[in-house]
């Protein structure tokens, strides 16, 4: 696999679905690409099209090697090419893992391997995925985590050029999920082909994927480097997808001054100049600072104060966080110790938003 050097997957597909049209185009090289979107946004359908399990109506899917001189076309509607899934060398990790219930662990892992190296490869995978001792068991006798490892081992033994992961953790409880996410991260790091992870879980995508696409209603609404995308989602929709809880329409009142219309005409100062295209502002629920009455007096005269009075907050307790809702539906989340149960000690009179925490956005907030 290493010999393939740079490998790149190009995807452009259109497919008419029941309530919308799937229309996505992207390119991905090494590293894991995350596709984040709500259930039923067409992301699984996109993956199935790449694997050849379903056929799109139109488009082109190709794997390119090296500096683009060589390519392998998996699907191209313009020349009526539709390679069978058997010949695509695209591995697919199903939500339910799709292990063959009538085959033992080692039979499952070896099923895609031909020829004499089968035994060696299976043994290698059993070791790599810590499945030693389970080789004679059947899938029905394994835990969820073990099943996932067998499914991954089965795919890796087949040595695909692309691996597609379809909501790999959706069928698991939280405790197991966190552990397996770390494991999968390690596996993906060692894999030199292309990998695409589809999920509706923000944390999962952030943790595992270097690049990301946000998808809704069959369309890609934003894409790019994961960290950059979370820091600057650009549009209101993308901001919502990355988990930004507070978004308000704005009116520009100065070069770096805005009035947040949905938050009681709150006046705020931004860090960057506000361009004409900016229509909204976002604040992440974790980005507020608690400010006492005294400190607030100091900030009051400063243009960068960005103070918000805390009036009749409604507080909800989580194990390690307080969820506080303020006037105009502003959300504030603040960390707490598991030993603290009374919110009075943590609820300040004022909150403050540092100018750098204001996310300038385009588009209409929903």
């Amino acid at each position, binding site marked *: 696999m290493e010999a393939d050097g740079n490998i790149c997957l190009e995807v452009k597909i259109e497919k008419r679905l029941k309530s919308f049209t799937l229309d996505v185009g992207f390119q991905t090289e090494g590293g894991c690409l995350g596709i984040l979107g709500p259930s039923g946004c067409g992301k699984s359908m996109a993956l199935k099209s790449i694997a050849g399990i379903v056929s799109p109506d139109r488009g082109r899917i190709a794997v390119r090697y090296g500096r683009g001189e060589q390519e392998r076309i998996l699907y191209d509607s313009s020349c009526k090419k539709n390679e069978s899934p058997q010949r695509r060398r695209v591995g697919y990790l199903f939500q339910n893992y799709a292990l063959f219930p009538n085959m033992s662990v080692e039979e499952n892992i070896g099923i895609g391997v031909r020829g004499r190296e089968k035994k060696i490869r299976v043994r290698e995978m059993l070791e790599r995925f810590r499945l030693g001792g389970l080789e004679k*068991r059947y899938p029905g006798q394994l835990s969820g985590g073990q099943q996932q490892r067998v499914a991954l081992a089965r795919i890796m033994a087949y040595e695909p050029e692309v691996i597609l992961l379809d909501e790999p953790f959706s069928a698991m409880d939280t405790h197991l999920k966190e552990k397996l996410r770390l494991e999968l991260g390690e596996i993906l790091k060692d894999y030199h082909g292309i990998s695409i992870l589809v999920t509706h879980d923000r944390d999962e995508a952030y943790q595992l994927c270097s690049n990301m696409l946000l998808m809704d209603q069959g369309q890609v609404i934003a894409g790019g480097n994961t960290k950059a995308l979370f820091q600057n989602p650009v549009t209101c929709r993308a901001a919502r997808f990355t988990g930004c809880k507070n978004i308000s329409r704005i009116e520009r009142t100065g070069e770096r001054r805005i009035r947040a219309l949905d938050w009681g005409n709150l006046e705020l100062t931004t860090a960057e100049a506000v361009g004409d295209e900016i229509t909204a502002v976002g604040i992440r629920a974790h980005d507020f600072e608690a400010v006492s009455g005294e400190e607030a007096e100091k900030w009051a005269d400063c243009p960068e104060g960005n103070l918000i009075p805390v009036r009749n907050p409604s507080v909800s307790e989580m194990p390690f966080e307080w969820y506080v809702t303020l006037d105009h539906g502003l959300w504030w989340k603040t960390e707490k110790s598991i030993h603290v149960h009374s919110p009075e000690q943590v609820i300040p009179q004022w909150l403050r938003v540092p100018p750098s925490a204001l996310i300038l956005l385009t588009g209409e907030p929903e």
Partner: protein
Amino acid sequence: MDWSPILISMKTASLSIFITFFLGILAAWLVVRMRNPVWKLISDGILTLPLVLPPTVMGFFLLDLFGVKGWIGSFFVEYFSIKIAFSWPATVLAAVTMSFPLMYRSARGAFEQVDQNLISAARTLGMGEWEIFARVLLPNAIPGVVSGGVLAFARGLGEFGATSMIAGNIAGKTRTLPMAVYSEVAAGNMDTAYDYVAVIVVIAFLSVCIMNGAAWKAGKETHGG
């Protein structure tokens, strides 16, 4: 008591279930794989017809095709000098025709209940279509397929209407157990009829028990008991 109806019925039922079993599975696999919904509907309709038509009507069609003057019948007479109608093979023909839809429908239902993801996974792992059928689809549909076999066997054993049309009721040749029961009752020999009835009940009950046992065992093995 004349033992020939018992022997004839055993021979007919065993050979016909052998044929029906494979034909039914094959037909089910082909129909499940059909992409065009219209063709699928039409094929399914034709293959199910013997189940919904009166047996005598199916017998009529068989006679029309396999009779000495029928397309297939005349062909066999001309080239092989074999008369199919009113000979022992006709009892098999009737039993296969009448039991086929039960096998086909059970197998189809069993195939359709196999998780589609298993098939897709097998394809993405490079397994050929035939290999997928033999190693994934069929093994995971075995309980349903075997119970279809039970039904088809019982149907073949009890076949009367179509058999009487195409094979007739020739003692020692085409008189199967159901035919014998009918003949004995018609002749007023209730005692002999009782014997035949008892034999049918025992065979039918035993075969269902044996096949159910097999289905249960197969089901257990597939799911790693």
